[in-house]
């Protein structure tokens, strides 16, 4: 105990003697930790918001009316795979009536699964005409009762009501961006022209706003049976959507369903693979940037401790000849690294917290992938823990290397050289 105090006293005098360099090292560490926390607060905040939105607004699993591999043409059964010497040109694909066969049966069977909600949908392109404006949209035919269990679309409705679809024939709910483009409001009547060529007067009964720009600009909802009429495909559905009690199981369950019914069945993770892999890149960049800052901070610590050791070679020599052990000497300098690390870490925590608050209070209007008026900030204790651990490991290693060198210094070599 007394020895530790003594070693600590000696360590402190060395840092006092280089106060400016010490402060710069501490700030370097603080910057690394603070930056890590602030970046994490912002990026993870965005990612969580985005992922939550995906889980909320879109189904966890979608069964589509297609197969993963296109059925091969008869000629390839004889002559091997496409891309070989013989290929038949100009074969028209057989006009299959697309749609999921036996949809009703599939829905009935899968509805037995506990925790699973199912909604059959028919989706198709439609043009809306209002005044002199034409806008195309993906019109989704839904059943409000089951839709409510699948997505949180109901929460996103900013005016009107999902159930109003049931009380109006050819009612429609528009995305906010779509409504803006059409300049239409709840109560207005649009003209809908389907790709099947069927034209209906459609009444706007609601407007939704998810915050995901792409969705808000292109999607609209009507009753399933109305859409079946518009698309001239009675009793057909082209997708079945599922929601799960645990969204994290989506990948696994999608695979099971696909194996059983053969239709391409896509989990939300697969559907959003692109964006989720962007998150991975984002995280990598974040860790790399923070790592680089911490590395520079490490050099600062390494540098100051190496300098102190060179400057204090005579002190080290006399302490060793007095009877201080190698590990005593090593402790003196590792203490210094730890001290810089701890102070830097605490300041870094504070800095990261302040930056998070500052970023959270900035008002910005953004209309990119998502539409928002502020940044999504998460306050996660683990960011502080990880930042702290990384900082302490880095500081200790940066100090340990020169400290080891000091510990192994032979006092005789220095005493010989210090006759004057």
């Amino acid at each position, binding site marked *: 105990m007394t020895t530790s105090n003594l070693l600590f006293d000696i360590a402190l005098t060395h840092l006092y*003697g280089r106060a400016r360099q010490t402060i710069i090292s501490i700030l370097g560490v603080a910057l690394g930790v603070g930056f890590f926390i602030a970046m994490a607060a912002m990026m993870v905040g965005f990612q969580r918001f985005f992922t939550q939105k995906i889980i909320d607004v879109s189904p966890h699993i979608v069964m589509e009316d297609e197969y993963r591999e296109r059925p091969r043409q008869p000629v390839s059964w004889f002559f091997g795979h496409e891309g070989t010497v013989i290929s038949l040109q100009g074969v028209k694909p057989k006009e299959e009536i697309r749609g999921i066969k036996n949809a009703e049966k599939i829905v009935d069977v899968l509805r037995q699964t506990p925790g699973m909600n199912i909604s059959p949908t028919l989706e198709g392109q439609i043009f809306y005409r209002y005044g002199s404006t034409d806008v195309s949209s993906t019109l989704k035919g839904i059943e409000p009762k089951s839709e409510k269990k699948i997505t949180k679309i109901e929460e996103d409705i900013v005016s009107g009501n999902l159930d109003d679809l049931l009380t109006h024939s050819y009612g429609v709910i528009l995305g906010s961006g779509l409504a803006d483009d059409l300049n239409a409001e709840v109560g207005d009547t649009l003209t809908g022209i389907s790709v099947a060529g069927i034209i209906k007067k459609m009444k706007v009964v609601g407007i939704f706003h998810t915050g995901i720009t792409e969705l808000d600009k292109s999607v609209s909802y009507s009753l399933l049976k109305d859409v079946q009429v518009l698309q001239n495909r009675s009793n057909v559905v082209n997708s079945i959507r599922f929601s799960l009690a645990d969204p994290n199981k989506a990948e696994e369950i999608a695979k099971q369903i696909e194996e059983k019914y053969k239709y391409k069945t896509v989990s939300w993770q697969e559907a959003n693979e692109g964006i989720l892999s962007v998150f991975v890149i984002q995280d990598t960049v974040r860790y790399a940037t923070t790592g680089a800052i911490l590395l520079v901070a490490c050099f600062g610590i390494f540098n100051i401790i190496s300098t102190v050791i060179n400057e204090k070679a005579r*002190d080290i*020599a006399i*302490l060793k000849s007095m*009877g201080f*052990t190698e590990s005593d000497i090593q402790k003196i300098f590792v203490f210094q690294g730890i001290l810089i690390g701890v102070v830097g870490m605490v300041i870094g925590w504070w800095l990261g917290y302040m930056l998070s608050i500052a970023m959270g209070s900035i008002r910005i209007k953004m209309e990119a992938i998502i539409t928002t008026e502020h940044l999504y900030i998460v306050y996660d204790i683990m960011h502080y823990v990880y930042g702290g651990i990384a900082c302490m490991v880095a500081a200790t290693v940066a100090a340990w290397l020169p400290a080891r060198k000091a510990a192994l210094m*032979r006092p005789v070599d220095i005493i010989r050289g210090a*006759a004057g």
Partner: protein
Amino acid sequence: MSGSGRPLLEVKNLTRVLPLEVPVTLVKDVSLSIDPGQFISITGPSGSGKSSLLYLLGLLDRPTEGEIIIDGLETSKLSGRKLSSIRLGRLGFVFQFHFLLAEFTILDNVMIPMRKLGKWPENEQEGRAVSLLKDLGLGDHLHKVPSQLSGGQRQRVAIARAVSNEPLVILADEPTGNLDTKNSKIVHDIFRDLVDKKKTTVVMVTHDLDLASKTDRRIHLVDGKIASGN
């Protein structure tokens, strides 16, 4: 403790060769026996191996061959940690340069070995350091830092530090090498006092033949070997 006939420090066939490309022999086949309570000087021409022998006796360097027995303990096979603890409790060093810690006060410098050893309770350490410094005429300078003292005063602080744990042996390498005649005499008298009053053994390397002549025993080295004094 030591006493009753057994030598305090015994050296048998001590050789130290630096394993360089052309090996350099620093100390060659030295055998010595030093009794407690003696004031011993080591003299010899420059380069004769005086410092090298002193470093070996002080366990700061390890011999190539031979044994060093301190207070009955054979040291050549001991770990570095064990050698450190022997140095801490039983040996004290004074060099030509004072090697005081520049940021610590005189008092704190003298207390360092005591704090490290912990033989005296913490509340007694400061009092002991103060009385040591007062004895050496430094009572007015306790809270000054080394740069505020003269060369002779600094060397006296270094001596106070070396004796603070009441070592059995003080090993001094040209302790008066940087001092004028007056200060040299003061240092010499301090050592004399330690030997006479505290029964400490002092081994002092010196070029000053006048001072050497006043010690109890003179060992003369030439080319790493003892030429006379054994």
